[in-house]
């Protein structure tokens, strides 16, 4: 019962945080420096690992598809399978998970430490709304950067699939044939759906991580507890949202 209460409370305060951040959106031009810094941080910390992971996910998709399709003579569809899976599902989910692990955890750690060491209290007494200065620029940066990351994940994943398809001897499909299949069954809508999903996940992850960080109470030990909670909550949120957003977009 208490846990249910906590969940509802967390949900409510997260939604409230979203609206308050939107309310501070007009101050974005004047905080452009902070916004750019956050964009850079998101890109810089997640891009390498997004690239590496999506390459291998694309590769393993092609490998599995090739293995199970070799007896059906359906190998020419490998390109479409990799293309659609990456664009509609694996690209956005993977970017969101990496965002939670790399960026979300850092956000929670920073805000929680600011809370514990009374920096947030100092901002409040200086009449500088912490949400305006700390949350809004991060959210805006996520909104801009997450689709970019998802596009990169798709491209790298497709490319990984192409390489595996060519050099695996029981598949050996040339890149032109692979990409032709990829284009044949995939529409712009599939990619757009995936980007919308990525956007929703990214926003959710950053919001949850900010909210948990700002609501940290107690001493230094609670900073670690908050980070763990933020990452776990983000992962659950991503998978739950994934179902509902996918359904809504069908």
């Amino acid at each position, binding site marked *: 019962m208490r846990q249910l209460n906590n969940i509802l409370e967390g949900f409510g305060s997260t939604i409230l945080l979203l609206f308050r951040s939107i309310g501070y959106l007009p101050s974005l031009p004047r905080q452009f420096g902070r916004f750019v810094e956050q964009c850079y941080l998101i890109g810089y910390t997640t891009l390498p690992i997004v690239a590496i992971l999506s390459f291998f996910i694309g590769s393993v998709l092609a490998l599995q598809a090739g293995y199970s399709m070799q007896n059906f003579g359906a190998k020419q569809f490998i390109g479409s399978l990799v293309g659609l899976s990456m664009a509609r599902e694996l690209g956005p989910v993977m970017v969101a998970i990496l965002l939670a692990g790399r960026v979300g955890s850092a956000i929670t750690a*920073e805000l929680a*430490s*600011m809370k514990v*060491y*009374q*920096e947030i*209290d*100092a901002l*409040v*007494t*200086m*009449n*500088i709304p912490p949400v305006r*200065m700390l949350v809004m620029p991060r959210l805006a940066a996520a909104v801009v950067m997450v689709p970019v990351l998802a596009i990169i994940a798709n491209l790298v994943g497709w490319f990984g699939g192409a390489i595996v398809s060519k050099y695996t001897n029981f598949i050996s499909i040339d890149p032109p044939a692979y990409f032709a299949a990829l284009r044949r069954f995939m529409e712009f809508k599939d990619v757009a759906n995936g980007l919308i999903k990525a956007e929703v996940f990214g926003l959710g992850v950053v919001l949850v991580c900010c909210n948990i960080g700002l609501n940290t109470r107690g001493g230094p030990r609670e900073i670690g507890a908050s980070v763990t909670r933020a990452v776990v909550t983000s992962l659950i949120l991503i998978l739950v949202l994934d179902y509902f957003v996918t359904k809504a977009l069908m």
Partner: protein
Amino acid sequence: MATAPDVTRNPFTQTESPAVGVTIENLSKSFGTFEVLKDISFAVKPGEIFVLMGPSGSGKSVLLKHIVGLEMPTAGKVTVDRRDAAAEETREHVRMALVFQAGALFNSISVYDNLALYPREHRIGNEASIREKVMHALQILSLENAAQKFPSELSGGMKKRVAIARALVMEPQLMLYDEPTSELDPVMGATISEIIATLKDQYHVTTIVVSHDRDLALNIADRVGILMGGRLVFLGPPSELHEPKDPKVADFLHPKIDLQNPRFKQLET
């Protein structure tokens, strides 16, 4: 610092703003079942220096947080300039600065940026005038060389001085200090006392200082309050502190070190 700080030509508080008063009416505060403040009432007049003393854990910091609206009363009311201190709008109308006991500096930015944050965020003046203000505040507290350092590179006493400098830059109408001299050497402690007194004399800044520093209390306080166990056990001018009637207050102000009958042994029996 040989010469007294030249606060007359300083850019602080050049904006004329009338001093504000603070009232505390029947304030009680509990954390869970633990009652920290018990029915406290007193008023701080506009432009007054009020020094609040008391053993550690008696609730002094909690009381200051009520005045700036960081804590909400369990019962009773705190007003600043006749506005409810717990309301957010009060901070829009009254410029208040709290020097936190631990400094509460922004750890991810330099000392200079710590001081410049308030005027930048509130768009007070251009970068050149902000620079002048910030450098002047740093100079008063002998921190010119620390401007580009980060808080993690400073000693405890330096952090405290940066926190005071950051508050000065805000040109507050109400200035609250939480143990401003506790980690400073005696000369710097005296300098802080001088700054507090000068701000009051020339700019009529209302000041509440939480401190154990008897020199500070006796020299600059208009009135002194002593908090013990969550109650206000003394309220009066500093001159009355020389011969307090309450034996507990007397022991707090002039504790005798008695090696024959030490306090920690009295507790055991």
